[in-house]
């Protein structure tokens, strides 16, 4: 159960003189969610393409579901499902026809194919739209249909390349729920994302990819501890309140001009409540409070010494 679902070492890929993957090592345990976090152009999709047999690396070795990606392509393909960055559903077919097409391509018997399609439509809440052409679906529904098509083959390892990019917040949460359920069924999920929050919400382990190299790997909590950006900002009505609060919270940094205190913390509800309780005890009035959690920019700045946007600009 706790074997390696995906193990890669020294993956390299270059297009002409542009290095896309520069020695990537990965180890994903069976039954866990692994997130590969990075900005556009970091090499996330290339990594997925290599692990899913679509692309041959220049160097390195990858073993997926116990099979070598380069030499046992067929066995790897039988064990995996891939949902690409753009929902690759057939717009002119209905949701149901899309799923039946997958069943046919998997060479399931007709009756079995219809059962699988009906079950997936039900599971992804697409029964009402089943007879509508996929072109009429919302972004969230398309992603769900796309994932349902991937699941028709009962894959044990599922690759999701930026599964929520471009989705509205509500659809994103639905997608997260679905991903959690998939892994609860014992599957392994390998997902790529640009959002630290997504990795934080879903992943057991996160690896940060930057210009083809892994710059950090660990649990979401471990990663965030390496990022100094998380803090609570308190603003006070006058200098007196600021002085009192400053004495109560010696760990805070003060900014006299703006009458603010910057208190380091993880931004969690518990630490926030504790902080407010301390201020209450001393009857300090806080004019304004805001919580700052690190985003991908902060993570990148902390881990690589350059910001996310710099990479985009290149």
């Amino acid at each position: 159960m706790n074997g390696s679902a995906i193990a890669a070492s020294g993956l390299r890929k270059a297009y002409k003189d542009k290095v896309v993957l520069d020695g990537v090592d990965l180890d994903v345990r069976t039954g866990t969610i692994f997130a590969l976090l990075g900005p556009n152009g970091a090499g996330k999709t290339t990594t997925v393409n290599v692990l899913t047999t679509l692309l041959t690396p220049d160097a390195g070795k990858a073993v997926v579901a116990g099979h070598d990606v380069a030499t046992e392509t067929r066995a790897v393909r039988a064990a995996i499902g891939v949902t690409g960055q753009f929902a690759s559903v057939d717009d002119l077919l209905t949701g149901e026809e899309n799923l039946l097409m997958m069943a046919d391509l998997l060479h399931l018997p007709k009756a079995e194919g219809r059962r699988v399609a009906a079950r997936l439509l039900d599971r992804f809440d697409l029964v009402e739209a089943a007879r509508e052409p996929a072109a009429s679906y919302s972004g969230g529904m398309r992603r769900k249909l796309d994932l349902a098509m991937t699941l028709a083959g009962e894959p044990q390892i599922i690759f999701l390349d930026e599964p929520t990019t471009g989705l509205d917040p509500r659809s994103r949460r639905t997608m997260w729920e679905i991903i959690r359920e998939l892994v609860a069924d014992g599957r392994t999920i390998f997902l790529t994302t640009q959002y630290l929050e997504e990795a934080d919400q879903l992943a057991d382990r996160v690896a940060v990819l930057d210009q083809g190299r892994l710059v950090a790997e660990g649990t979401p909590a471990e990663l965030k501890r390496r990022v100094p950006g998380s803090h609570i900002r308190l603003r006070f009505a006058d200098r007196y309140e600021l002085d009192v609060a400053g004495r109560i919270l010696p760990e805070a940094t003060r900014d006299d001009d703006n009458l603010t205190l910057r208190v380091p913390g993880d931004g969690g509800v518990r630490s926030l409540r504790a902080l407010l309780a301390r201020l209450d005890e001393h009857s300090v009035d806080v004019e304004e409070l805001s919580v700052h959690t690190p985003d991908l920019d902060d993570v990148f700045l902390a881990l690589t010494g350059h910001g996310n946007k710099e990479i985009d600009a290149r």
Partner: protein
Amino acid sequence: MNVIADSATMLRRNFRHTMRNPVALFNGVIMPVFLMFLMVYVFGGAFSVGVDYADYATPGLMLTTICYGVGATAIAVNSDMTTGFINRLRVMDVSRAAVLNAHVIATMLRSLVAIAIVTGVAFLMGFRPAASFLEWLGVIGIVVLTVLAIGWLTVAFGLAAKTPESAGLAAVPLMLLPFLSSAFVPAGTMGPGARQFAEYQPFTSIIETLRGLLTGAPSAGSAITAIAWCVGLTLVGYLWARASFTKRA
């Protein structure tokens, strides 16, 4: 065996596409019919080609019909590539020929339907072929070979193009080539340069073969040239398409 089952699955998909997006078929018929009116009723009177102009122009219009129809194929193939549909199939280990075979077969069926309609209109406009049953079979054979050649080339264009728009553009030269062939006027009447081009380009030999068969006077020479062109172009298109399919991820 999976190749056949998978090709059939993909062909069902393409068939549904055609039925649900009849504009593609409509475009493939309406333009050649419009061209036929233009050529036979408007310009044809001024052309002296030695025979009734409807009889002269119909073989060329059959070829033109094929060329107008394949724009849709290039766009469909390209959008399968760019939307990740083909990658989905590759990861599923679907036989790699299936999706391309289906596009070519669908192109074939659409072209045959369109040519049948265009030929029907030609009859209404005074087309009176003198072909025997065997010669008609020959016509169908040449048409099928031509669609195979143009179809595979178009599939290769579609796979190689970066966007559906540029894939659609790739079909434009095909639409212009008939004008630089013996489709509407004999090559011998053209200016220097154009004449040599028209005489040696593949469409002229195909059109001359069709014309010979339809007038009941088939010419073995142009038939051999036409068949050689078709087989050669099919091979080039097929190999090019296969290479692009394997390479692009």
